[in-house]
C-alpha cells in the first residue's frame, strides 16, 4: 500500500520533527516539514500531500492566511487542511478534530493516536 503523504507546517521545528518520527514509525505515512507557511503552496505542489497539518499562530504568515493561499491555487485547493492550534481546546474541537468557523481544528498537545484518527477522517 502506498504511504500517505503528510505536510506539517509549524514554526516550532521540533514539533514537526516529533510528529514526523511518530507518524513515519507506523510505516503508513511519509511526512515532510515546513517551519514557515510562506512557501506552503510551492511545497505542496511539489510534495503532493494527501493531508496538511497547519499551525495557526506563526510569526511570518499565520495559519488562516496560508489556508487561503492553498485554497486559491487549483493544484492545492482540494488537499484537506486541518488546523493545529494551542489556543483552542478539545471542548471546541472534539477529541479527534472538530470544526470552528467551518474549519477542522485539532488542539495541542496532540497525541499520535488523535492525529491519526483525524488524518483518517479528513484525508481522501
Amino acid at each position, binding site marked *: 500500500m502506498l504511504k500517505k503523504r503528510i505536510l506539517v507546517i509549524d514554526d*516550532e521545528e*521540533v*514539533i514537526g520533527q*516529533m*510528529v514526523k*518520527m*511518530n507518524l513515519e*514509525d507506523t510505516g503508513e505515512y511519509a511526512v515532510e516539514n515546513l517551519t514557515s507557511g510562506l512557501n506552503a503552496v510551492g511545497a505542496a505542489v511539489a510534495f503532493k500531500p494527501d493531508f496538511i497539518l497547519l499551525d495557526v*499562530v506563526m510569526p511570518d504568515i499565520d495559519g488562516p492566511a496560508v489556508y487561503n493561499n492553498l485554497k486559491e491555487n487549483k493544484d492545492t485547493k482540494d488537499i484537506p487542511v486541518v488546523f493545529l492550534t*494551542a*489556543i*483552542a*481546546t*478539545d*471542548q*471546541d474541537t472534539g477529541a479527534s478534530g472538530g470544526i*470552528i468557523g467551518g474549519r477542522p481544528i485539532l*488542539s*495541542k*498537545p*496532540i*497525541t*499520535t493516536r488523535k492525529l491519526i484518527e483525524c488524518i483518517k477522517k479528513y484525508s481522501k
Partner: protein
Amino acid sequence: MSPERNIMKKILFFLALILFAANLYAADTLIPVKVGIYEDAPLVFTGPDKNPQGICVDLLDKIAQKEGWKIEYLYGSWPECLERLKSGQIDLLVDIIYTDERSKLYDFTKESFISDWGEAYATRESGVRSILDIKDKIVAGVSNDMFYLEFRKLTKAFNIKCKFIEAGDYPGVFRMLEEGKADIGVVGRLYGARYGQGHGIERTAIVFSPQDSLVAAQKGKNQELLEAIDRDISLMKEDKNSYYYRVIDKWLGNAKARRFLSFLFWFSVSALGLLLLFISLSVILKTQVARRTRDLTAAYAKLKETQEQLIQAAKMQVVGGLASGVAHEVKNPLTIIIQGVEYLERKIPPDANIRMVFGNIKNAVGRADSIIRGLLDFSRVSKLEMTHEDVNLLCERCLALMKHQFDKERIRLVKELQPGIPGITVDKNKIEQVVINLLMNALQASSEEGRIILRTRFEEEEGEIIIEVEDSGSGISPEALNKLFDPFFTTKRGKGGTGLGLSVVKNIVEMHNGKIQIRNNDSGKGAVAIVTFKA
C-alpha cells in the same frame, strides 16, 4: 461639760469600739470566695449598673451569709468563665450544666439551683402547638445555644424539614418572632417564663433537653464549698416557705408575686399610659430610622456589588489577555513532550520503571494542559451557539452524565425540577458545562451519605428561570466566600483542582446575561449555587 453629754460620749465611744471589733472579727473570719458569672438571665446576669443579679446570685448570697463567705463576683463571657475556673482564677462557677466532658476538669454540686429546659415559642398566626406542626416553618434560635442545637438534632432525628435562622441572643429570638421573620423561637424555659409573655407569642407544648443548673469548682478543689451549697440548697428546697421559693417566685413571677397593692395598680395604669405614649412615639421613630437604614443598606450593597463587579471585570481582562499567549507558549512545549514520550515509549524496551516514568510524564503533561484549558475556557469570547432549550431536559442530561460518579461516592441525588418551565435560548453545551461544574463542586464538598439537590424553578413575576445546586457538604469558609470566582482560587490544590471551574461558570452565565450566586445554606450545612436567567 454637762454630765449627760459625758455619758453620751462614753456610749458613743463604746459603740464605736464594738463596731470596730465586730469588723475586725468579720474581716478575720469571712472566707473569700471568687465566683464566675456570665450572661444568662434570669439565672445569672448583670444589671444596668453592672451589679450581679438573678436566681443563682440571690441563692448564693444567701448561702454565703449563712456560711460566712465573702463573695466576689467576676464577670466574663462563658468561655472566659470556663477558662478562669480551669486556671483557678475563680473558685466557683455558677449556672453550669454537667457533661461527661466537663467532669474531667471540674467537680459539680449534686443539688441543682433550678432546672432549665428548651422550649419553643411560636407566633399566634403560625398555629404551631406541637412538634407535629413545625414542618416547613422558620425556626429562630441562638447560634451555638445548646437548646437550639438540641432542637435541630431533634428535627433531624424526626426527619422534619424546617428552615433555621439565627439570632445573637434570646431577646433577638423573640424579636424575630415579633417582626414575623420566624414562626418559632427556641429558648431556655427560664428565659421564656420571664420574658416570653405577650406580643402575639405563645408557648407551645414543645419542651426538650432538661438540664440542671449546677455549681462547679476546679477538680479536686473547694470541695467544702460545693458540699455546703448542696447542704443548704437541699435544706431550703425541703421547706416550701423558704427563701429558695421566694427567689424563684421573684424571678419567675408566680401568682403570689403578681398580687398588687391597689395604689400600685393605679400608679401602674397611669405610668402605663405614659409609657404607651412613649412607646408609640418611639415606634414611629424606630420605623423611620429602620426605613432609612434599609435604604442606606440597600444603596451600600448595590455600591459594593458594582465595585466587586468592576474588580472581577478587571481581573477577567487581565486573565483573558494572558490566556491565549500563555496557552501558546505552554502548549507547544507540551506537544513536544508528549510526542517525544510516545516516540521513546516505542524505542526503549519497556521495563516496569521506564513505563512508570513515562506514565508520570504523560500525567504531568495532562495536568499542565488542563490548567491551560481552563484558562482558555475562561477567557473564551467565542460565539455562543444559541438554541431553544428545555432547562429540565438539559439538567436531566447532566445528571445522566454524572450519575455514575454520584453512585460511586454514595451521594444521594434529589431532583426537584419544576414542571412547565418555559423554554430558554442558550448555548446548551455551555450551560451543561455550568451545571456539571456546579454538580462537581457540590460532589467534591460532600462526604459519603450526603445529598445534593438539583432544582429548577420559574419565578413568574420576575420572569426568571432559576437553576439551583444545593449540597449538604462542608460549606464555604468566610475567607473563601468572596474569592470563589477568582481564577485559580481553589481549596483542592494538589487534589486535582485548578480553581478555574467557577470562573468559567461565571463567564458563561454572564455571556447569557444571567447571574450566579453561591452562598452557604441558611440551615448552616452545605452550600447552594443559584443561577438565574431571564426567561
